[in-house]
């Protein structure tokens, strides 16, 4: 079943440079897709077009049969509740507790008033704790987020995305700020979201090896265009070189 269709997507922030050009692909429910490409290729922009964190200039994004580009404000909120997002810098509110940050994922289901008053049902709270337990950070639930390590914070970020009960999770370089150990933990968790919970995952990655290890399918982006789209196994040395161009060597030393 096709969950997401991107058709002829084009995007530019200013008139000079076209960040995305005629991007076309489809994602089926339950897939785990990695997007790779050099810095500035437009990976982040692509993810942000999908939940319309940035406006779409050309083409269409169709998610769950809805045309994302034409949604009204209210429908857009509804769409976003169906799409979780995980960030490189976790993007938590550092002064609030872990559990509060997780519950922020429920705002999409609340009226403004409920949200402002911070009214969450007991079920929601229990659900949050369940997720924390699943990701192994239940002991930190009442700690402030800035007291956690990077890997722990990212797990909070994942919980926040999951409590939305999304159909799709977008991850923008979820492990770029983490050490190898934590990275492995996070990638394992993301993978299990797809395998255990059946939630589709779209992950931006810098590390080609990680992408190859974890994902079924890889999309290679270069200067805003898709230059590779296929199963991980088919991504070979020369494709990688094609994606990263001459930048590959620099990339590896980083």
């Amino acid at each position: 079943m096709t969950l997401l269709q991107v058709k002829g997507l084009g995007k530019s922030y200013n008139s000079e440079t076209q960040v995305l050009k005629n991007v076309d692909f489809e994602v089926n429910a339950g897939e785990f897709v990695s997007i790779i490409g050099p810095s500035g290729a437009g990976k982040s922009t692509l993810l942000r077009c999908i939940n319309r964190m940035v406006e779409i200039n050309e083409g269409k994004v169709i998610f769950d049969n809805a045309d994302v580009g034409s949604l009204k404000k209210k429908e857009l909120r509804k769409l976003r509740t169906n799409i979780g997002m995980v960030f490189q810098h976790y993007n938590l509110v550092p002064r609030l507790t872990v559990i509060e940050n997780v519950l922020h994922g429920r705002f999409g289901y609340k009226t403004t008033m409920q949200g402002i008053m911070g009214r969450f049902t007991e079920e929601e709270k229990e659900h949050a704790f369940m997720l924390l337990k699943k990701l192994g950070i239940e002991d930190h639930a009442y700690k402030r987020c800035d007291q956690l390590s990077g890997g722990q914070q990212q797990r909070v970020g994942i919980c926040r995305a999951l409590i939305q009960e999304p159909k799709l999770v977008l991850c923008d370089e979820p492990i770029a700020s983490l050490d190898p150990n934590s990275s492995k933990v996070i990638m394992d968790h993301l993978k299990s979201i797809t395998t255990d919970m059946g939630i589709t995952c779209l992950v931006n990655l810098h590390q080609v090896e990680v992408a190859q290890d974890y994902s079924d399918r890889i999309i290679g982006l270069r200067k805003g265009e898709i230059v590779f789209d296929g199963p991980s196994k088919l991504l070979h040395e020369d494709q990688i070189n094609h994606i990263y161009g001459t930048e590959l060597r620099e990339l590896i030393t980083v």
Partner: protein
Amino acid sequence: MEAGRTNDLPYIKRTKDGRINIKSGNKIDLVVKWTLIILSILTVMAFFFFNYIGLQWDRAIPETAHNLRVMFLEPALNHFSWGEAFYQVGITVGLGVLATVIGAVIALFLALMAAENLSRPWISKSIRAVVAVIRAVPTVLWVLIFAIAAGLGSEAAVLGMLFHSTAYLVKAFSEAFEEVDAGILEALRATGANWWHVVTHGVLPSTFTYILSWVFLRFEINFGVAVAMGAAAGAGGIGFELFMASGFYFDLREVGFITYAILIIAVVLEIISTQLKNRYFPASTNN
């Protein structure tokens, strides 16, 4: 769902009525909460405590609106000329510059003595205490004292403003100095450098941009103070004209004109200082 089972999970805190708690209840939140509560209570109390004698809202508000309109939409000069206005603004700026520059120079030395990492504890403590008291004395008092004792004129205005400027900058500077990496000081001392070497080549270059932005900030403040204090100290300046226009002639149009003049200067000063800071100082390698 299985509420019975989650009840006794050790990592879930519950309120008395059995609901799940999501606040951590740490000290910071508590202090913030209570500070806000107390401030709100005090604010509400304040309105009971005020004296409202002679206040007629129904007259005051429309009148203020009317006055503001006259001021800002029909500014005019009646009692002095453009040239005079320009000259008076110059005096006010001059007072601000003098108080700031002299204050900054004095503050620089005092701050070196007040910084805990550059000075002896007792010297630093005593300077801090004195400076705190000086800062707490309103500038008006200093200005009046000097106006009385030293006679009317720019000396009184500048000296009066100087006390507060200096005290303020000593605090700011010494805090900046204290943030200089202890390792840098240690390394310089270990080369056999003496105190002055450490200060001129380690401390000042490391804090130069901070010092400058504090000086600029203080200059903005001093310009505002000079408007008020120049007049009181008999040093003149645009503040004297403002006082005359409003307290004596009740000439709103002129008040409007003067206000514009001050506003323009203040905005220009703000722009110049941000430009200077952005353009030159983050990148420069001064010594």
